């Protein structure tokens, strides 16, 4: 008898336009001590399965068919009170975002003790001891001291450890982990996965690991179920699924994952998912407005040259200078980017890579150093009028496609705004024409113009962002994690689009990412950053083949990889 078995599960969400089926015909078996990965893209119904098991489907969702058995007993028909007794006690659940999973106004101890006393019949003193022990088990140093602290005093990785301790404090024998490492840096991710694997084996607990990340699956899961559109399309041993997938969807999904081991020209597109909207070549870029009047001259000189760029943020305000605390986000960073080059910046969160992007584009004022753009030191320009022509030549694409577009503006107006601001079009009708062409160039089509951002998916929104960035005919583009919020299939499309545009318009790009495989596919040269310092700059191939800095080697070794037997 398996630890948990799901038979013929169907979850539906009643809506005004009939029932939306989130998951259907799902059959799963999980043994004790086993880790089953569920992988798929957003909207595939992975989380729905986890929520159905623990009985926390978002309203108005409900289980329409099927049965869920834990230890051979049906749990999907239990009443609320009995289900609640199972949660935390027999089934533990870990969520994606450790920053929001903990109550910010209570100490770690208060939250642990409450949960422990609820499930294990202990008095408060025993529960406190047990709580410290739980923190020790998830490898939090000085648990006796840390337990008195509040969540905001922990880093992201440490918080996820606390979340795990909370979910496992009553020793459940079945664990659901819903994207447990998605919000974390690779080095932290590796530690957390290792920890979860260890705890599973040690306590002989079964686990469902829900993720979109093939690398995480490869490192952790014993078996994998691949989900697409509410259905499990394929299930089997991890090595078999990743190495020799049978289903077309799995094949195309795996091929869309950027390869860490070798540079390819273009990303294979996941044709199975959606008729991948390729760039409609309606516009001949060389003669079009976009390509025309790019009278920047073709010099071989550096497009961008940073000299001892420094940025410090005040982290504690105080009246007296000596009581103030500063954080050096960027410490004396110097590098240059050649015309037409794609320069990558890689590093973990807090390494200062985004801060550099923001200083270059003028969002932050650097505390020291020089930014030479096309031979002019931007830090010396004082008035907005002086800076404007340079600003026009550089544009930025942001990470989050949901918050970087104004939801109250039509796409047309969003894209037209930079054109109007820099007075690049003579008339309104000319401006409209340019906007339509831009939308075609990024593969959205004219019809997108009159819609609002919420009508588009994440990938489409990122296309809008790119169209907006191109609207001033820039020659320098800053892309700050442009695809880290997107599914792999969409990521492949967006990266292809960026590559095409870069070649056709001869753009210079500063490409910021934490994702090493993506960097390898996109960039000519790469800089590695840690704690605000630039540790190493080298050609991309050299960096991946012969990393010179120790930290780079460490990053490369932590990069989740999986064997490609299929190609």
């Amino acid at each position, binding site marked *: 008898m398996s630890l948990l078995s799901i038979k013929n599960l169907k979850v539906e969400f009643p809506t005004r336009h009939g029932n939306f089926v989130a998951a259907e015909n799902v059959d799963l078996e999980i043994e004790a001590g086993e880790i089953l990965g569920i992988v798929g893209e957003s909207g595939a119904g992975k989380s729905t399965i986890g929520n159905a098991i*623990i009985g926390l489907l978002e309203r108005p969702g409900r289980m329409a068919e099927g049965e869920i058995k834990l230890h051979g007993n049906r749990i999907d028909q239990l009443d609320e009170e009995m289900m609640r007794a199972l949660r*935390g006690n027999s089934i533990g659940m870990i969520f994606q975002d450790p920053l929001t*999973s903990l109550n910010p*106004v209570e100490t770690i101890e208060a939250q642990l003790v*409450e*949960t422990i006393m609820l499930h294990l019949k202990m008095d408060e003193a025993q529960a406190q001891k047990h709580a410290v022990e739980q923190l020790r088990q998830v490898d939090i140093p000085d648990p006796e001291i840390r337990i008195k602290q509040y969540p905001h*005093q922990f880093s992201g990785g440490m918080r996820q450890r606390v979340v795990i301790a909370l979910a496992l404090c009553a020793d459940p024998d079945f664990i659901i982990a819903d994207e447990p490492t998605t919000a974390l840096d690779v080095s932290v991710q590796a530690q957390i996965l290792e920890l979860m694997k260890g705890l599973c084996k040690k306590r002989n607990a079964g686990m469902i690991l829900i993720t979109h990340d093939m690398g995480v699956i490869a490192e952790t899961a014993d078996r994998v179920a691949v989900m697409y559109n509410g259905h499990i399309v394929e299930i089997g041993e991890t090595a078999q699924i990743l190495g020799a997938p049978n289903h077309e969807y799995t094949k195309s999904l795996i091929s869309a994952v950027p390869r860490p081991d070798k540079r390819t020209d273009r990303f294979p597109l996941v044709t199975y998912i959606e008729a991948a909207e390729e760039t409609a070549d309606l516009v001949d870029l060389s003669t079009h407005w976009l390509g025309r009047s790019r009278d920047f001259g073709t010099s071989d000189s550096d497009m961008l040259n940073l000299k001892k760029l420094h940025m410090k943020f005040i982290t504690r305000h105080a009246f007296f200078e000596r009581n103030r605390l500063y954080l050096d986000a960027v410490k004396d960073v110097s590098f240059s980017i050649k015309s037409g080059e794609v320069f990558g910046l890689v590093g973990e969160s807090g390494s200062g890579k985004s801060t550099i992007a923001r200083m270059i584009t003028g969002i932050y004022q650097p505390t020291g150093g020089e930014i030479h753009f096309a031979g002019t030191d931007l830090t010396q320009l004082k008035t907005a009028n002086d800076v404007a022509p340079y600003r026009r030549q550089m544009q930025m694409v942001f990470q989050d496609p949901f918050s970087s577009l104004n939801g109250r503006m039509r796409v047309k107006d969003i894209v037209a705004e930079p054109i109007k601001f820099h007075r690049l079009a003579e008339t309104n009708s000319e401006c409209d024409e340019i906007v339509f062409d831009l939308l075609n160039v990024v593969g959205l089509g004219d019809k997108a113009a009159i819609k609002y951002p919420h009508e588009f998916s994440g990938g489409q929104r990122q296309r809008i962002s790119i169209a907006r960035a191109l609207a001033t005919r820039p020659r320098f583009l800053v892309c700050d994690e442009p695809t880290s919020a997107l599914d792999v299939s969409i990521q492949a499309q967006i990266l292809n689009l960026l590559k095409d545009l870069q070649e056709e318009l001869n753009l210079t790009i500063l490409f910021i990412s934490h994702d090493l495989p993506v960097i390898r596919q996109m960039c000519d040269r790469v800089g590695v950053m840690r704690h605000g310092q630039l540790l190493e700059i080298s050609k991309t191939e050299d960096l991946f083949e012969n990393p010179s800095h120790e930290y780079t080697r460490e990053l490369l070794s932590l990069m989740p990889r999986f064997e490609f037997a299929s190609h």
Partner: protein
Amino acid sequence: MISFIVKRILQSLLVMLAVALIAFALFQFVGDPINNMVGQDTSLLDREKLRQDLGLNDPIFIQFFRFVGNALRGEFGFSYVHRLPVSQLIGERFSATIELSFVSAVIALVVGVPMGIYTAINRRGLLSRSFMTLSLIGVSLPTFLIGILLILVFGVSFRWLPAFGRGEVVNIGWWSTGFLTASGLKALILPSITLALFQMTLIMRLVRAEMLEVMRADFIKFGRARGLNNRSLYFRHALKNTLIPVITITGLQLGSIIAFAIITESVFQWPGMGLLFIQAIGDADIPIMAAYLVLIALIFVLINLIVDILYVRIDPRLRTSTSGSGGQ
């Protein structure tokens, strides 16, 4: 923490100085004080002498410093109309307004917060919906109308409660209280409900909105997944997070209960500062207006200070900026 409080106090002082300047400006711009004080038949010579005696010929900033100095000692000169020291006039009425506001604030909080929680938890319940509908009435009906209606029903038709005045009061030192007599307590009921109604509905809607927001947070979902019961989720985890923004607004609302008791006091002929202020406006009695302005500003500033301190008490994220983020 201490530097935070010191900073807030310094800011408060600046605000008070600005308000004092405005109050002082009243004297300069709203009519000639001498004209307001003396009769028609006073000779020009006498007027000039009076002007000299009162220091009105001194440079403006010396007059201002004198005004601030007097205000610090609680002296705002003599009322033009009552011919009594302003401090005495306000002192007599201060306790009436504070007692009325206090009772109103308690009603608003004690009823409003639980109603907000209830309507947030049972969002679709019949009772919640009727609360929400009723609260619309509370927000949209003007205070004076509610007051008049209450007087009509309970004061005139049923004759259960007094329609005006404070009833009997007991003097404890300079403080006169209506809490100790039956008639005093009875007299409090109608005006305090009138004054509380608007704030109550506001607090209810605010608590409801915040609570709904917090209930969507990940840590509530995670709490559910750990098997915590609803009582703990609602009243322990959600409520404390709800209170953080609610305290700010509520604090300011308490300030405005005191400041804008004017209408209620007029309707119920409540012998408080608001009524005094209304009369002072009618009579262009500038010393009273100036004193009232400064006093209300002081109350607001004090409440704000308390709110800021409470904020830091409740939210640990604000407290620990000094101890730093350990173990990053």
